[in-house]
């Protein structure tokens, strides 16, 4: 592939990206200065990025542009926002409490009915469904496990929700029937966690695949073999660091 296809800034970018990726991967060997550098660079850049975005999106877009248009409403939240910042000045730091009270009060109030609606009532509503259906042949119950809405699955769901709720019920001893219910709850929980476990493994592997796919791209001739060259450099650096460190440790 002709090299001139990749502009200089992208070429440089590719090398930087590969280098930083390998810095982070070096943690697999052990915690080391290359990794720490990468980690701190990451925090620094993301804080810097956030500052710039907040500046433009909040202070310019939502406040300054509105005020210059003659809409002075944003000055009220700006005042409250400034109160939050009094936290930096110990003598009047208590003023920030007024702002927090405002924000937290609003947040809590807004949350209550919405949580009840979406996370409690709606969930009960969907769990409480008839186990049987009325068809032409009279009442029947579906035992089709493949259909999540079938009668048998409705029972499984009901038993599951009930027993897990019971497991987290602290006012009675788990004895007798309670023991059975709580154990059932634990088994449901464990299968649920198992599914999460499988999915989390899947997720992490996907991330690795994504990184390797990028490294593969940058390993091409068009990028000047960035990946293999920088890999060698990283390994050698780690070797040197290990040597100097040992020497430093011994005396």
């Amino acid at each position: 592939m002709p090299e001139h296809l990749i502009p200089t800034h992208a070429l440089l970018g590719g090398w930087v990206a590969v280098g930083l990726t390998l810095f982070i991967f070096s943690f697999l060997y052990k915690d080391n200065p290359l990794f720490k550098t990468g980690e701190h660079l990451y925090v620094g850049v993301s804080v810097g990025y956030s500052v710039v975005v907040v500046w433009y999106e909040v202070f310019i877009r939502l406040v300054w542009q509105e005020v210059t248009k003659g809409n002075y409403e944003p000055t009220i939240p700006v005042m409250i926002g400034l109160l939050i910042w009094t936290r930096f000045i110990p003598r009047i730091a208590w003023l920030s409490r007024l702002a927090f009270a405002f924000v937290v009060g609003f947040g809590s109030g807004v949350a209550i009915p919405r949580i009840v609606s979406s996370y409690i009532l709606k969930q009960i509503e969907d769990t409480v469904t008839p186990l049987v259906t009325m068809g032409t042949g009279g009442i029947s119950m579906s035992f089709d496990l493949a259909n999540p809405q079938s009668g048998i699955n409705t029972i499984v769901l009901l038993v599951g929700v009930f027993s897990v709720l019971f497991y987290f019920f602290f006012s009675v001893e788990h004895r007798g029937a309670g023991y059975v219910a709580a154990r059932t709850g634990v088994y449901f929980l464990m299968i649920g966690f198992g599914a999460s476990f499988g999915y989390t493994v899947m997720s992490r592997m996907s991330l690795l695949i994504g990184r390797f796919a990028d490294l593969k791209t940058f390993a091409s001739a068009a990028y000047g073999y960035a990946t293999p060259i920088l890999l060698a450099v990283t390994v050698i650096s780690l070797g040197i660091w290990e040597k100097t460190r040992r020497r430093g440790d011994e005396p």
Partner: protein
Amino acid sequence: MTFLRRQLPLAITLIMGVTFALQYYIPHPISEDAITHLSKWMQIISGFALVLGLASLFQVHATKIRRKVPGWGYSVILYLAMLVTVLVGLFWSKGQTRVDGLQTGFGWIYDYTMVPLQATMFSILAFFIASAAYRAFRARSREAALLLAAAIVVMMGRVPLGQFLLPWTWDITQWLLNVVNSAARRAILIGVSMGAVALSVKIILGYERSYLGGGKDQ
């Protein structure tokens, strides 16, 4: 003074909380207007709150550099990275990562440092999962055994090779996710939500005050 410091914040929380909890049940335009304005305000206020978080990070590393604690050099790196990003972002690229389809300096920093760093940070967990799979994921109890069995079925059922070798894992995975997992998750959701409602109620009524933090006389 104590009124201003102690009772007034609690009163504000109470009024705001009750008002905006009730707002939900009131469809009248006046109530709609109130939430429209307030939500817009909150948008701006959260911008200020974000700065608070960033600033505290700033402080932590400033202290490290000042006291020259071991590893303070990394804090310097952090500062430099931040400074360069802010300067490039504010003064050179004017907050734009792209102008007329062309990458700006700010965009370059984002694409070639932040993206690979952040993406790689969590991809190393893949390696640790592998090593933990070999050394730590043991069926040490009946519960753990059940968990691992479910996990293995899901791991098989969710990838093409598993579906190809053992097609039944697909069906079982679907059932586990849609029925058993849904049940467990739903119960957890209901439980956690009750906790969240209880916390909100306690905040509004002044039983819970840790969010006020800061300053003395707590």
